[in-house]
């Protein structure tokens, strides 16, 4: 196996390489979070998304212009394998629902919630909590600026971590997603996953 994290101990590399991480949604959060995880030494990912790459996604998502029109999970798989060629990827081109979420992510140690609608986010968090999974979610990260407002909140006795700004009215302003702020949140989600796997309080 190629090793791009020489500064981790062998035990730390092993912990990350053996973990299986679910990515629910391969958009701005999910595609960038997956990229960070792979660069950090994660080798096993289960990625679910039913969408195709659109031109409007290129302002923030980990895809390229020549991938417009391709299935997101397939394009993301190609891009991740360009970073590390021997990943173990399960690419699920389907919609995650309350009925199939537990089965799709049942083998995962941690699930990253990276959906783009409030309903889907709530569904995944509740379904995964009921299944006893650890979830790293995100909420309210559109717009730009206000970097210091992005925080990590610990809930459900450490089974749920949420990245967001927790401003009560953020959803009302209609902020569109842009690369830097979505990228910060995606990186915070990946950062949280790595810390949890290495046994540290994120």
């Amino acid at each position: 196996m190629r090793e791009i994290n020489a500064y981790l101990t062998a035990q730390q590399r092993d912990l990350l390489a053996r973990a299986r991480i679910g990515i629910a949604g391969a958009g701005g959060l999910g595609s960038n979070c997956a990229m960070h995880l792979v660069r950090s030494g994660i080798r096993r990912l289960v990625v679910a998304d039913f969408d195709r790459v659109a031109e409007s996604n290129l302002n923030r998502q980990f895809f390229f212009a020549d991938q417009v029109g391709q299935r997101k999970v397939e394009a993301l798989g190609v891009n991740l394998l360009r970073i590390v060629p021997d990943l173990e990827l399960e690419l699920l081109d389907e919609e995650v629902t309350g009925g199939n979420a537990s089965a799709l992510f049942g083998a995962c140690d941690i699930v990253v919630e990276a959906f783009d609608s409030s309903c889907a986010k709530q569904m995944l968090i509740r379904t995964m909590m009921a299944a006893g999974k650890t979830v790293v979610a995100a909420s309210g990260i559109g717009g730009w600026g206000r970097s210091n407002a992005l925080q990590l909140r610990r809930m459900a006795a450490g089974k749920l971590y949420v990245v967001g700004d927790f401003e009560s009215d953020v959803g009302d302003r209609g902020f569109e997603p842009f690369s830097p702020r979505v990228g910060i949140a995606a990186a915070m989600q990946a950062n949280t996953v790595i810390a949890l796997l290495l046994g540290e309080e994120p």
Partner: protein
Amino acid sequence: MKISFNGISQEVAAGTTIAEFLVQQGVQPAAVVAERNGEILDAGALGDVLNEGDVLNAFRVVAGG
């Protein structure tokens, strides 16, 4: 009676449900994920009555990624 909501102590009338309390706080219950005493609540549990000393946390689930 007193409960804790998002880390702040609040006075609540006995018999208040979680959903009623959230509305009092200006929060739409359908738009949040909430936990009571460390357990994430199903949407249906928002109709449950708050108890003295409950630790309630809720965050608005807003899309934007």
